[in-house]
């Protein structure tokens, strides 16, 4: 076996020499490299990174904003749901029979209190020593249970309408929750995709040594 094939030493084989001559015509003739104008490894690397970065950050920002929007929506829906639940609980509590004084008695009690206060107030205003100071006093607020009961909804209405409302609300809420969960899953998948692409892009910068 000739060593010419390995290191060009010794007598060349005829066919090896022919192949060298024939294929040597395809040999590379180095031509001047067309380097970027601002030749610097660091500058080239930085320009490469700045070209890559906006695209990656754009995608990440879009994914993050989408996720934040969905989270905000979820929070709003959940808080609304909590408010409804609390209101229902309060209404159910009010439906329960409680001992309440008759409206006539309540009104009489309020009237008596108001009259007593009016008397004291006018006496205080008439007194010269305290008149200036008393002028600034306001009559205390008296809780009028009769008025409060009147403004409150009738107990019969509470037992019929809200039950239907609760049934429809829970159905709507269930649908909304399912839609929300689906949207969250989609957003999460997109976010993961964007993150994976970023990781792959950054892995492309890693050394390729063997």
């Amino acid at each position: 076996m000739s060593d010419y094939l390995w290191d060009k030493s010794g007598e060349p084989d005829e066919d090896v020499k022919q192949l060298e001559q024939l294929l040597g015509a395809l040999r590379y003739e180095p031509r001047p490299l067309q380097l970027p104008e601002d030749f610097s490894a660091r500058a080239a690397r930085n320009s490469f990174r700045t070209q890559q970065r906006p695209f990656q950050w754009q995608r990440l920002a879009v994914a993050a904003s989408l996720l934040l929007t969905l989270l905000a929506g979820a929070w709003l829906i959940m808080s609304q749901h909590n408010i409804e639940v609390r209101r229902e609980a309060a209404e159910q509590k009010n439906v329960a029979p409680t001992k309440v004084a008759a409206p006539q008695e309540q009104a009489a009690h309020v009237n008596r209190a108001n009259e007593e206060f009016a008397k004291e107030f006018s006496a205080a205003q008439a007194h010269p020593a305290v008149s200036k100071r008393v002028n600034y006093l306001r009559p205390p607020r008296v809780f009028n249970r009769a008025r409060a009961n009147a403004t409150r909804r009738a107990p019969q209405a509470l037992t019929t309408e809200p039950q239907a409302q609760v049934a429809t609300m829970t159905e709507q809420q269930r649908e909304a929750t399912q839609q929300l969960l689906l949207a969250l899953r989609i957003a999460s998948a997109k976010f993961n995709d964007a993150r994976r692409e970023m990781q792959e892009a950054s892995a492309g910068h890693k050394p390729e040594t063997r």
Partner: protein
Amino acid sequence: MYKVEATGDLLGMIGTSPTPVAAPMTEAPVEVALVEAVRGGDHAAFDRLYHNYSRMVHGILLARVPYGEVDDLVQDVFLTVLRKIDSLRDAERFGPWLAMITRNRAMDYHRRTRETSELPDTLAHHAPPQAEANEVLALIRELPEAYREPLILRFVEGMTGPEIAARTGLAPASVRVNIHRGMKLLRERLQGPGGKEH
């Protein structure tokens, strides 16, 4: 692959290689200095790396992509090197690192041309200088992958076996075995089924 390397090691053990392979020992410090200089922005150092390694890059590409595309891809590879040279941890392994970038670039070329439409060879920018040379090159490309690169680097680029081993970072014994086996296969193909010279 194991068989080839094992045979190569065996050849090394029985001493069929009288010529000492000194290239890797002498080139590594030079490469390290050049790589460091390029990292500092030295244009001349990059030119020197280009002249030292452009033949290897050309040969590796020629084993994989059409002749007309090789010259542009060589430029692409060196621009990639310029961009990524800071990520090379071991400057002594510049040659193997460059060879890997070149092979990746060739794969990338095929991936992109598959996505788009492939032009017929008649429309290539550069026609091969000799039709006969192109035929032999086509025969080499039909050989197993392990033989293609060393044969092209040996016959087209005119590199010696030790030089190929030093530049690509492959074991000299493996390169030696692959060149000889590839040459044997090429002879058979050139002679054709009838035993005639191609």
